[in-house]
Structure formats: structure tokens, C-alpha cells
């Protein structure tokens, strides 16, 4: 399935290139690119997790950034008490994001369509304000994380390259998990429910349970992305889980192409690239336009929806003879 199409081959090449990125960036002596890539890949994990519920499950969450924040605080708060054990951080991330996803999911999954969007927004805003009010952990100003999560030496996160491979590994695992998931029995129920939930129920599926499980899996994956983000930025503040951040995640998914495996990766890469270089491009056109880069960005967003169905993945797939998007 993967390398069967032209776009599949492009993605395979892309993954190999990403795997070699630390060597490439050190060869061309541009360590900053590795930072940029690290950030893009972390966001790609988050966007892929969102894609699992949004692209495959049809659940549009406008509150997914909350899990990024939860994951990052699961590093930041133990670190605040000088607990740097990485397994504790990881375990806490999984437990907290899973419990939060489960408890809110019990209510969220009872709603549909726009109500779903609004209730996910509501819960993420509650998390946002909770962390704003936690004066002990920096409130609005956030927490500086002095040391990265500590893992055994073969799994260490110290140094830009080691952290990059952690992130890269996590991304590959996430993509693999989602790939297997979507075509497993479980995944078929999720995909089926996206298009016709009533029918799925009459086929004998308790769709509520399956969708809830899917929502929890997605939350945990995004939580792990948050844990990596905390380690990468060495800093966490509530601002990172505001609703506009959730909007950006949706944007990344759609820009890359929803319900395609590599769409979120492509989308986040494009997003991070634009965020970094659009201001520079504007500056070269006219030095005083530096601050106006949101304008072409917004225009792009509008055009993407009006004219660019299927996102970047969509138009890559158009090179394929049969087109594997679904």
C-alpha cells in the first residue's frame, strides 16, 4: 500500500531524508534547520493524532492543543519538583492525557458536528484557564524546564541530534500505529462511523465506545507530542494550548490533506516553513512589510479551501494514475 503509488514513493524518500536530517544539517553547517525540523515533526505527531479523529473519524476537535499542553506540563511540573526521570514523565503524560480524554470524551462523544467543535473548544478553554490560574506553576508566564527528561543512555534526549531522533522515532511509531489502526477491525468501525454512524449501529457496533476509544488514543498520542514539545522548547506556558493553537493544528491537517497518512506531516512542515520564512520573504519584497506576513498567509488559507481540495497530499496524488485518496 505504501510504496505502491508515486506519492507513496515520494513519501518513502521523504522519510529516509528525514532520518538522515542530522547528518545533512551538520554537513551544510545549518544546525538551526534541525531545530526547525524538530518542531515540525513534533507538530506533525500532534497533527497526525488529530487526523486520526478528524480525518478518519470525522470528529472535528477545536481543542486538541490542550493535549499538547497537558503533555508539556507533565514534563514541566515534575521537573519543577526536581523529578527528571523520563519514564515518570512519559507515564504521567499517558495516564493524564488518557484520563482527561476519557472523562471529557464521555460527554464530548455524545455530541455531533458543530456541537462537537464547540464542546471540545469549551473543555480546552477550561484546561487553559486552569493552568493560567495555577500560580505555583508560573500561571500565565509559564514554566522553564531546566533539564530534559532523563532516560537510560541509549535512549537519552540530551543534545539536538539525540532529541531529534527521539522525535523522529516517535513520529514513525505514531504513523505506524495510525496506519495499522486505520486498517484494523477497530479502524474500520471508526471510518465507517464517520460516514454513516446509524448504519454502523444497526450492524451491531456500539459506535460510542469505539469512537470514545479512538478519541482517547488520539489524546494520548497528542499528549506524547506535548511531552516532546516541552523537552524541545524547555518551556511551557498556557498560551501553547489556546484555541488558536488548536485552529492551527486543524489548519496543518487540512493543508496537508486530511485522512492521508502523510498529510499532517506535509502540512506541519509547510506551516512551520511558512511561519519562519514568510516574514523573511515579505521583508525582501519591502523592508517595512516584515510585520504583514499574516496577509499572504491568510490569503493562502482562503485559497487552499476554495481551490485546493485534498491539500498538498491531494495534489501530489493527482500524479498517481489511480489516485489513492479516499
Amino acid at each position: 500500500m505504501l510504496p505502491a503509488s508515486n506519492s507513496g514513493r515520494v513519501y518513502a524518500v521523504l522519510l529516509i531524508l528525514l532520518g538522515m536530517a542530522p547528518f545533512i544539517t551538520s554537513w551544510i553547517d545549518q544546525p538551526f534547520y534541525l531545530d526547525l525540523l524538530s518542531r515540525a515533526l513534533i507538530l506533525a505527531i500532534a497533527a497526525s493524532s488529530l487526523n486520526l479523529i478528524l480525518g478518519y473519524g470525522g470528529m472535528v476537535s477545536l481543542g486538541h492543543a490542550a493535549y499538547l499542553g497537558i503533555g508539556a506540563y507533565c514534563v514541566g511540573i515534575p521537573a519543577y519538583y526536581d523529578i527528571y526521570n523520563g519514564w515518570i514523565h512519559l507515564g504521567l503524560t499517558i495516564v493524564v492525557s488518557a484520563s482527561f480524554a476519557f472523562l471529557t470524551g464521555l460527554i464530548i462523544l455524545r455530541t455531533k458536528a458543530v456541537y462537537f467543535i464547540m464542546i471540545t473548544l469549551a473543555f480546552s478553554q477550561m484546561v487553559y484557564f486552569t493552568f493560567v490560574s495555577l500560580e505555583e506553576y508560573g500561571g500565565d508566564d509559564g514554566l522553564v524546564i531546566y533539564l530534559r527528561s532523563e532516560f537510560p543512555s541509549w535512549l537519552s534526549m540530551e543534545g539536538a541530534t539525540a532529541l531529534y531522533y527521539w522525535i523522529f522515532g516517535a513520529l514513525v511509531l505514531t504513523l505506524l500505529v495510525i496506519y495499522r489502526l486505520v486498517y484494523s477491525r477497530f479502524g474500520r468501525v471508526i471510518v465507517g462511523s464517520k460516514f454513516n454512524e446509524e448504519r454502523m449501529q444497526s450492524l451491531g457496533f456500539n459506535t460510542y465506545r469505539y469512537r470514545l476509544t479512538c478519541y482517547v488514543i488520539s489524546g494520548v498520542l497528542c499528549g506524547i507530542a506535548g511531552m516532546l514539545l516541552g523537552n524541545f522548547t524547555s518551556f511551557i506556558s498556557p498560551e501553547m494550548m489556546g484555541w488558536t493553537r488548536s485552529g492551527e493544528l486543524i489548519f496543518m491537517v487540512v493543508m496537508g490533506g486530511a485522512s492521508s497518512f502523510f498529510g499532517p506531516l506535509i502540512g506541519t512542515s509547510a506551516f512551520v516553513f511558512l511561519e519562519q520564512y514568510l516574514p523573511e520573504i515579505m521583508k525582501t519584497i519591502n523592508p517595512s512589510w516584515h510585520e504583514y506576513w499574516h496577509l499572504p498567509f491568510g490569503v493562502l488559507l482562503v485559497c487552499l479551501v476554495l481551490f485546493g481540495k485534498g491539500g498538498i497530499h491531494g495534489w501530489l496524488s493527482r500524479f498517481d494514475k489511480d489516485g489513492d485518496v479516499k
Partner: protein
Amino acid sequence: MTDSILKVTALNKSFGGIHATRDLHLEVTRGDIHAIIGPNGAGKTTLISQLSGQLKPSSGSIEFERKDITRLTTAKRARSGLARSFQITSVVMPLTLLENVMLAVQGTSGHSFRFWKPVKQDQQMVSAAMNSLTEVGLQDRADKIAAEVSHGEQRQLEVAMALAMKPRLLLLDEPMAGMGVEESQHMVDILKKLKEKCTILLIEHDMDAVFKLADQLSVLVDGHIIASNTVENIRANQEVQRAYLGEQHA
């Protein structure tokens, strides 16, 4: 006493002030094709939806194989052997026919909290699904996307999906809706074959088809069953003639 597979007692359903089902009694005998006929708006689909669990009745009880299922969810009823097809084609359009039927197989064969193995590698499920497709004559179209096949084929797919659930009672909501003469005849043949496998409760407007297929007939008017008997007896029934058949076959 005959073996009754479904027994509906004093069923009532109202939406606001409108009574869609009024004191409805119905008994379906195992092995029969039992057709329900009635004018538009008589509450046929409402009845089916209550039997399959999409709608909760206001009062009354539904027994399936002597167990009270009135409070069970749709999914639980489906797993216990009660399948339905929909009047408005209701398949998962972006998936292939095979994938659709496999969903039906999956729904009634254990839980689906299995996250890793691709379904397509599950030979048992693939062959079970192919069998159902073969029974409705769609085996050659298995890899087509549901949205891209003809309306008649989608209706057949509906039946194949219901069949794949290995139901003991099949609720068919106008399987021939919108079909041409040839397609209808094809469907009649399919249903005749199905009769050997399970009991069928059929709602259908196509009277020719009903008379060809049904063992028992119930006439539903204003949410109430006014008569229930063999086809011959119903044809002879004056009241039914007046209430329903008379209008159509005058």
C-alpha cells in the same frame, strides 16, 4: 402453537401529539416471509425503527425469540440476530462493496477492539463477506466503490450487508424502492433464496412482489395493524379491500 420469532405487544409511539404507532400487535412466525403493507404515512418505517432499536417506543413491548428486547440498543439487537436494511440506501459510500459487507461481518463476529491486524488479512472475514456478495450476485463488483455503482446494486448491497450479519430475523425496509422492473425481479429472486436462511419481515410497496414472496401479510393503517393473515385470506378480507387494497386496485 407455531414457533414465533418476534412478538410485538401493545406498542405505542408518539411524536409530540402525533401517534405514529397505536396499540400495535404483531407476531411473526419463524421461517416465514411476513410482509407489512399499508398506505404512505401508515407508520411502517417507524415500526421497523422501533423493532431495530433506532427509535424507543413510548410504551409496549417487543420480544425477539422469547426475550424482551424493548430496552436494548440497536447494536445489541443486531448482535443478537436481528438485522435491518434501510429504505433510503444507507451504506458507507466511500468504501468498496467488499469493505461494506466486511463491516457487517465484523459487527456480528465478536468485538472490534482489535487494533493491529489489517482486516483484509483476515481470510475468514473476507470469505464470509464474499459469500454474502455472491448470494446477491455482486461478487464481480466487490472492489468497486459503493458510491460508484448503480442504485439497484446499492440496494442489493444493502441486502448483502444485512445477510452478512447472519440474522435470524431480517427487517427489510422497501428493498425494491426506486428499482426498475428487471432489477425488482432480480431482487425477488434473491429474497426467495434468502427465505431458506432466515425469517424476513418485509415492508414493500410493490404489490406484485409482495404477493409473489409473502407467506403472511399484515395491514398497517394509521399506526395500527387492522389485519394479519395469509395472503389469500387478506386478499379476501373486505375491510382490507376497503381500507387499502381497494384504493389501489380499483
